[in-house]
């Protein structure tokens, strides 16, 4: 299965919804989308991982890298993730401490 991303705007935030599998084969594609968006001035990003079928440590690395890039450009990155099997990876690696997992796009945009 390939990776597929959908981009939309909600309340001044750019929402990237990721479908499919994020691994070493597909992470570069996701990274490219995120780099391009920040480069185009969309540094306030919501990454919606609720449609993801698989995510590994390369995916986590891509998220960290995008977070740092967004912040460097005066923005931020927020994660929507309610699937326990994906959330688990953020918890195991302690990334949920730096990057809270939000229940939906509205909560992400509200920053709550």
């Amino acid at each position, binding site marked *: 299965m390939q990776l597929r991303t959908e981009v939309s705007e909600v309340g001044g935030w750019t929402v990237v919804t990721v479908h499919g599998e994020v691994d070493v084969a597909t992470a570069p594609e996701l990274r490219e989308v995120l780099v391009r968006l920040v480069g185009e001035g969309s540094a306030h990003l919501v990454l919606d991982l609720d449609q993801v079928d*698989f995510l*590994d*440590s390369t995916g986590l690395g891509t998220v960290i890298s995008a977070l740092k890039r967004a912040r460097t450009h005066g923005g931020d990155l927020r994660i929507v993730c309610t699937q326990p099997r994906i959330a688990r990876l953020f918890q*195991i690696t302690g990334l949920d401490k*730096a990057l809270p997992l939000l229940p939906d796009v509205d909560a992400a945009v509200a920053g709550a």
Partner: protein
Amino acid sequence: MAVVELEIPARPAYLSLVRLVVDAAIGSLAPGMSPARLDDLKIAVSEACSNAIEAHEAATVLEDPVVVRCVIEEDQVTVQVVDQGRGFDPDRLEALPAATDPRRLRHESGLGIPLMRTLADEVAFTPADNGTTVTLVVYRPATTS
């Protein structure tokens, strides 16, 4: 005991095939594994295969296959990932900063082995003459059959 072995080219495009085979070989043929434990195992195997593929790239042995061996036993499932890269010493990897340390976010990589160690019940890295064998074990609850 049942053994299913898969040999793939050392290319990231084959990672999804590996996960599919682990899913099918273990999900349908090892009753009693919960979907959550099977997910854990699939992630751990995928991480080990990613490293194996990276090791073949680093050692420029891209023509050699990576082997994934699933061994289904009564009380556990074992997956071995065998590569022919240059090997490494897992005890000498840099430890990640604590989750609360702001420097934590400097680390975009190095998450694979910590994940494997948490997701599998047992993990072993065995250096071989010619590469590394990663052994991942997940216990199976006793089934009533």
